[in-house]
């Protein structure tokens, strides 16, 4: 099959991931979009492995490592999200501005909703 099919799909998925990360407000949805980007990279790795007929199968092995790292990333990411939700009662990423330096007027946003 044509390699460009896989590469095109991967580019589209990556674009979707970029859109999702920027457009989503809910932190869990942002993590999902990040997963889309990681999978786009994986698809590239596997496709190039198959095209190159790699004797070491580096592409597939690296895809496995990416999956492992992604699992760790999602786990810690969601743990942070759950902690934030428990403290602030919201996981809207554009309202969590506690660490922001400027814009003191909007600090009130981070107060927990009663």
């Amino acid at each position, binding site marked *: 099959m044509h390699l460009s099919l896989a590469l095109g799909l991967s580019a589209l998925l990556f674009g979707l991931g970029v859109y999702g990360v920027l457009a989503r407000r809910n932190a869990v949805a942002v993590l999902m979009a990040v997963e889309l980007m990681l999978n786009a990279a994986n698809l590239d790795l596997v496709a190039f492995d198959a095209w190159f007929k790699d004797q070491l199968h580096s592409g597939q092995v690296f895809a*496995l490592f990416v*999956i*492992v790292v992604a*699992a*760790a990333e*999602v*786990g810690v990411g*969601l*743990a942070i999200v*759950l902690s934030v939700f*428990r403290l602030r009662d919201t996981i809207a990423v554009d309202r969590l501005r506690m660490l922001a330096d400027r814009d003191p007027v909007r600090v009130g946003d981070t107060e927990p909703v009663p």
Partner: protein
Amino acid sequence: MHGYFGGYALVGLLGLLGVGFVAFGLGANRFLRPWRNSGDKLVTYESGVDPVGTDWAQTQVRYYVYAFLYVVFAVDAVFLFPWATVFARAGFGGLSLGEMFVFLGFLAVGLLYAWKKGVLEWV
């Protein structure tokens, strides 16, 4: 239908057949079943008493920790299975066994930590 692609073609066809079976069953159901709607019937059953509030009872983050504990160990299956097919062959042997034990040892430390922190106690 031979070899690698033939095998997975078979898997795919079986999937289609399964979906077809469920669709057929639900389709037959659609034609055979009665339909007598009333407002009361469509209320959530819950425990037989009229439901109060929404469906969000208090839930525990603990569920999440258990789930993540699994994810961490599930990824070790990713390496354990390929390793199982090669470790006893020539050129791997004891060294490869040691490597896997180091890997599992690190994860076991994680499990011990979880145990010490009382995560495995459900109070």
